[in-house]
């Protein structure tokens, strides 16, 4: 069994490990560090110790032959015959990673009547498209898609599988990884290759983005990750690129979850895909004033998000809520209007290039994380701002 111990002779009680521990499991007693039961064996303390006073033993794990696993796969998520942008973003990243270890990039396309999409996948960077085009794959289903992916992975043995961290991707990926019993890192915001060890280095936020963790999967294949939309840029599409399209026939799979009907948002928008979000907080004052934010969002081609109280009061539906108990969003621009910037709200803001805050209280915590701030009344600023944006378009 793995173990972690303080080598008392070397420990000087400097407290660096206490600070480094994400689980608050280390205490200094009589000038020596003591590791308590909250320890999660993550090893963060080992690196922090300048005196080599922490002995961390991982278990020996029997490793099969990992070299038979080759190539990088991207799950091509589509809906109504349209590819999700995140899949294209992942193809671009996969190309970059594939170059470092000299392997192919394969897009896996599941669905019904999806053949036209295969050319697009090649244009965006796939060397090869594995396609299963069947009527029983018409509706996305965790089990049916999951089992199909598992079958393909067992047959073709890729070393890396990347999936967009959309609602569907986050639900599908753990089906695959836990069936195959391999590692899966959720919501990565950065990926790189440790070429020498042939490991995918996956960086992801934890504790609501307050801590970043670098995660590897050394002994199992494939190495799997879901990746947040908008962290990578798709390549320029090149419809002259050549790629191999492999159409596979598979026996139908049954699932115990049946889709009765889709109830799409009327507006057809989706917070996770939005480039610009106008966030509405309690400071907007009334349900009627929501319109002011909506008009700005329309002028900017953006969409509305909100803080929790606005949803709890009933001014906007839950699907708009950003934060710890709502959605995580990653637009390029987030405009917080009358939002105080509570930690639970900020937990939903991932990798946003520019945060803009409009708030009447100069002390509001949102200003600490805002790139641009305006102290003022949203009810006054919003209409003026909308007007300026509209004027600029003429």
């Amino acid at each position, binding site marked *: 069994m793995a173990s972690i111990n303080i080598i008392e002779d070397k420990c000087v009680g400097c407290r660096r490990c206490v600070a480094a521990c994400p689980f608050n499991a280390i205490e200094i007693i009589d000038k020596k560090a003591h590791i308590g039961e909250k320890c999660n064996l993550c090893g963060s303390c080992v690196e922090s110790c300048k005196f080599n006073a922490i002995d961390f033993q991982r278990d020996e794990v029997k490793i099969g032959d990992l070299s038979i696993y080759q190539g990088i796969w991207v799950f091509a998520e589509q809906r109504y015959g349209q590819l999700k942008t995140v899949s294209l973003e992942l193809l671009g990243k996969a190309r970059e990673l594939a170059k470092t270890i000299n392997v192919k990039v394969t897009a896996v396309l599941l669905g019904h009547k999806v053949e036209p999409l295969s050319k697009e996948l090649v244009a965006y960077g796939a060397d090869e498209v594995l396609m299963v085009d069947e009527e029983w794959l018409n509706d996305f289903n965790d*089990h049916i898609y999951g089992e199909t992916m598992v079958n393909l992975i067992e047959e073709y043995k890729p070393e890396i599988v990347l999936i967009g961290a959309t*609602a569907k991707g986050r639900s599908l990926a753990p089906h695959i*990884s836990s069936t195959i019993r*391999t590692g899966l890192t959720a919501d990565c915001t950065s990926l790189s290759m440790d070429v020498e060890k042939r490991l995918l280095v996956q960086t992801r936020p*934890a504790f609501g983005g307050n801590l970043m963790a*670098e995660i590897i999967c050394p002994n199992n294949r494939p190495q799997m990750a879901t990746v947040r939309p908008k962290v990578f840029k798709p390549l320029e599409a090149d419809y002259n690129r050549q790629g191999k399209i492999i159409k596979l026939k598979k026996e139908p799979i049954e699932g115990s*979850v049946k889709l*009765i009907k889709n109830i799409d948002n009327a507006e057809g928008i989706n917070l996770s895909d939005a480039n610009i979000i106008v966030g509405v907080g309690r400071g907007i004052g009334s349900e009627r004033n929501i319109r002011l934010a909506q008009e700005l969002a329309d002028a900017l081609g953006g969409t509305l998000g909100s803080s929790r109280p606005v949803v709890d009061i009933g001014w906007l539906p839950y699907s708009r809520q950003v934060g710890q108990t709502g959605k995580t969003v990653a637009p390029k621009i987030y405009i917080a209007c009358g939002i105080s910037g509570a930690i639970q709200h900020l937990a939903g803001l991932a990798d946003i290039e520019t945060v803009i805050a409009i708030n009447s209280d100069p002390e509001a915590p949102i200003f600490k994380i805002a790139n641009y701030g305006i102290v003022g009344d949203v009810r006054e600023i919003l209409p003026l701002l909308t007007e300026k944006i509209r004027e600029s378009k003429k």
Partner: protein
Amino acid sequence: MKIVVCIKQVPGTNEVKIDPETNTIIRENVPAIINPFDTYAIEEAVRIREEIGGEVIAITMGIPGAKDMLKEAISLRIDKGILLTDRKFAGADTLATSYTLSKGIEKAGEFDLIICGKQATDGDTAQVGPSLARNLGIAYATDISKIIEIKKDSIKCLKITDDGYEEIEIKLPALITVVKEINMPKLPSIKSMKVAEKSEIEVLTFHSSGADESRTGLKGSPTQVRKTFVPVHEVKNEMIEGTAEEKATKLSEILIKLKGVD
């Protein structure tokens, strides 16, 4: 109907204070709470039991101190709490966690429905629910916002998607993960708090869980944390000054420029 809810103890705040000298995090004196999403799981299970009868068991894998959280869950009207705790479980990633939970649930006997929170606020992975369902060999559906109808061997639900909702039907036994929209958790009553105080929590250790050592804890975890670090956000903080009109003009110029880089 027999329902199992999976609940996790998480730090009460995600606020991480940084020691400016060592540039490392300070996490002292942070209270532990029930993962917020799991409170909706508890409420939904209790609601179903109050409607059609049955039993609700809460299970957690955690440190011995997580017993207090299970007692709190009893004050929220669940019937029974099970704690899986052992040094051999430490260091588990989502795969090892869900395997260990599946062993605990198997010990608890037959069940119809398992309810998990959408995700835990410490890691935000949303993987344990689906992974647990796979370990138990049952169906699952994530992000459930409403249970429309419960039958003996199936439930009809609304599921939140990126594009709206899906109405789905799930054959039981199955696992669902729930979001905040599903209900409004009730507070404990004096009576339920008294019941909680007197309650006994069942403890399962590595041995009594019957788990396979190679699949629990650090050993059973394919993923490894190589390092952790506090992100440094170099925030360029610019306050826009002037009259309301001037502020709006300046901000509109900034917005147009930012948008233009597309």
